[in-house]
């Protein structure tokens, strides 16, 4: 072994050629808080990767501000090792992440380095393809309309706020309202949609606690979802520049799979912390602050990121990149600066409300404020047929519920509407980490919306759901469940078969 190493080294030294020539260099003139000012390097490009020669070795930096007399750069490595007077060199490379299929199932940092202790990602580093973190979003001609559903496994979302592959759907809500749970359930549910091409999931954790990320990864490992998931970890403990780069790394990973004609889903958890990291960076770089001290281009920072989500045309491979950005609001204020920005960029939002969460309505989706602008085009025919009137009924129920707080005498129709609203609300309740395959969602919603369980007491709804699904699976698996899963359509034959099965089941259900 030692002999081989010596021989290899000797060969390397013998073949080493070096001729000194003039090279452009820069010098660090200021350093602090992970930001450096560099004099020289007149030909430096924006977003170019630089190397700072320190006593502790080379430290990477990223050119951010190109000004008349100096360059403002952010240090991507050990910022404490950098001192005034250190030499800086250009690499000629724009910041990128090495990509290959081996990255699936790994936890990486925003620069693509493994952080899960499972060793190197690419056995042959030469085969990894560099994907730039910043890439222009696909143009209009390269895209097509969203037409394939991306099921979350959450009844309330798949029925009323459907998401399509290539869509950008915002998940917004206060802290601890179940935003990450919606994202996690969506990842877990991708195992349960065998009739459609599999989805590669990328979870980008920005500014979160290390323990929360570890817990998330553990759930993925326990459920087997890690086999098709990549986690980009940018916890609160890493410098703001790396937190800022994390979502772009996630987008680059997604684009790698999209370019191969595959479907990818990227979750940015969350963009509020991303905006905070960018604000810190910009203030340290002395960029002028604007509203809430965010720099003027914070909208563009998010719009250029989310524009990279797309459904590509068949000519361009037909791949897709779906984006689920998450925004944390303060006291349900969705009209704050960053929430309104991201709401206007995305194709809809799932609004999770703290009061609903505290009332036990989980997932705490506020149907009135949630919307999906393009997803209905991708919704399966069966779900569309069943869930059509659901939103309207729930909206009427919420209105009546508010109204009856002041009235004691209620007419029969109003009473019935309220009872039905309560029943539908109960049906939509779902525990986390328990996503339902879409065909099962259709079955449960069919029974509820078509009025078959109107007489059922609220406390029996959960039992009905479990037993009914069990009954259908055991006795009508081939005649109802399978055709529904394969075709995604509720034909007249299937409708009558389901009706008969449901009536049969209800006879024996107590």
């Amino acid at each position, binding site marked *: 072994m030692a002999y081989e190493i010596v021989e290899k080294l000797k060969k390397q030294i013998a073949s080493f050629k070096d001729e000194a020539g003039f*090279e452009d*260099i820069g010098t660090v003139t200021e350093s602090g808080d992970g930001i450096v000012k560099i004099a020289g390097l007149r030909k430096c490009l924006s977003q170019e990767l630089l190397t700072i020669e320190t006593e502790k070795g080379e430290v990477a930096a990223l050119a951010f501000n190109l000004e008349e007399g100096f360059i403002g750069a952010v240090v991507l490595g050990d910022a404490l090792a950098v001192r005034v007077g250190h030499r800086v060199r250009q690499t000629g490379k724009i910041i990128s992440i090495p990509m290959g299929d081996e990255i699936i199932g790994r936890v990486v940092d925003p620069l693509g380095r493994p952080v899960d202790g499972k060793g190197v990602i690419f056995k042959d580093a030469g085969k990894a393809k560099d994907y730039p973190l910043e890439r222009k979003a696909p143009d209009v001609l390269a895209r097509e309309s969203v037409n394939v559903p991306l099921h979350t496994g959450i009844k309330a979302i798949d029925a009323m706020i459907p998401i399509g592959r290539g869509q950008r759907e915002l998940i917004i809500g206060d802290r601890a309202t179940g935003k990450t749970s919606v994202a996690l359930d969506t990842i877990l549910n991708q195992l349960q949609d065998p009739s459609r091409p599999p989805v590669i999931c990328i979870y980008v954790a920005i500014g979160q606690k290390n323990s929360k990320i570890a817990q998330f990864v553990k759930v993925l490992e326990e459920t087997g979802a890690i086999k098709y998931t990549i986690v980009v970890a940018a916890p609160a403990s890493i410098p703001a520049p790396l937190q800022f780069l994390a979502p772009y790394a996630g987008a680059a990973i997604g684009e790698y799979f999209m370019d191969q004609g595959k479907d990818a889903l990227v979750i940015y958890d969350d963009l509020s912390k991303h905006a905070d990291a960018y604000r810190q960076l910009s203030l340290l770089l002395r960029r002028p602050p604007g509203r809430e001290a965010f720099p003027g281009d914070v909208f563009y920072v998010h719009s250029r990121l989310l524009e990279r989500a797309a459904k590509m045309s068949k000519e361009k491979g037909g791949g897709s990149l779906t984006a689920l950005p998450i925004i944390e609001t303060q006291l349900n204020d969705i009209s704050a600066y960053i929430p309104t920005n991201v709401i206007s960029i995305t194709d809809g939002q799932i609004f999770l409300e703290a009061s609903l969460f505290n009332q036990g309505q989980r997932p705490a989706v506020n149907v009135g404020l949630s919307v999906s602008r393009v997803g209905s085009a991708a919704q399966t025919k069966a779900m569309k047929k069943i869930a059509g009137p659901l939103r309207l009924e729930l909206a009427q129920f919420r209105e009546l519920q508010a109204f009856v707080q002041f009235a004691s005498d209620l007419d029969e129709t109003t009473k019935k509407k309220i009872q039905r609203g309560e029943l539908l609300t109960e049906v939509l309740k779902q525990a986390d980490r328990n996503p339902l395959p879409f065909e099962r969602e259709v079955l449960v919603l069919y029974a509820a919306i078509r009025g078959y369980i109107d007489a059922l007491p609220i406390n029996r709804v959960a039992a009905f759901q479990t037993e009914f699904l069990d009954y259908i699976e055991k006795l009508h698996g081939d005649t109802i469940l399978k055709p529904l899963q394969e075709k995604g359509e509720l034909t007249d034959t299937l409708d009558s078969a389901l009706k008969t099965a449901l009536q049969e089941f209800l006879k024996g259900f107590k």
Partner: protein
Amino acid sequence: MKYPVSIYARAFLEIKPDPKKFLSVVAKNGDLPRIDKIIAAIEEQETHDHGGKVISVEFAREMDDATIKKITKKFKERDLVSIKVTPSLIAGTRITIDGAQELDGSFQRKINKLWHTKS
């Protein structure tokens, strides 16, 4: 407000004041600790104004006068040449022009390059 050293240098070169007056202004602004940098900036700007270049020649060890003379003769008279000893170079010479370009013939660079060469 702290003035950048380049502003001090430009002001000095434009009005060429009595050095005593200049120093008192620097002291009044609390910038005396930066006087070395200010003087260096004045020298650099004056050199550039006369079409010269600021050249720094670094050796790994002390050189004899004859060698230094031989090297400085290679540059034009209007250039500002400074000689430094940088032991971290290990061997050889490094020449830096205007802090933006360098010709590095040091052993340190060769080792670094060899280290980063992919096999």
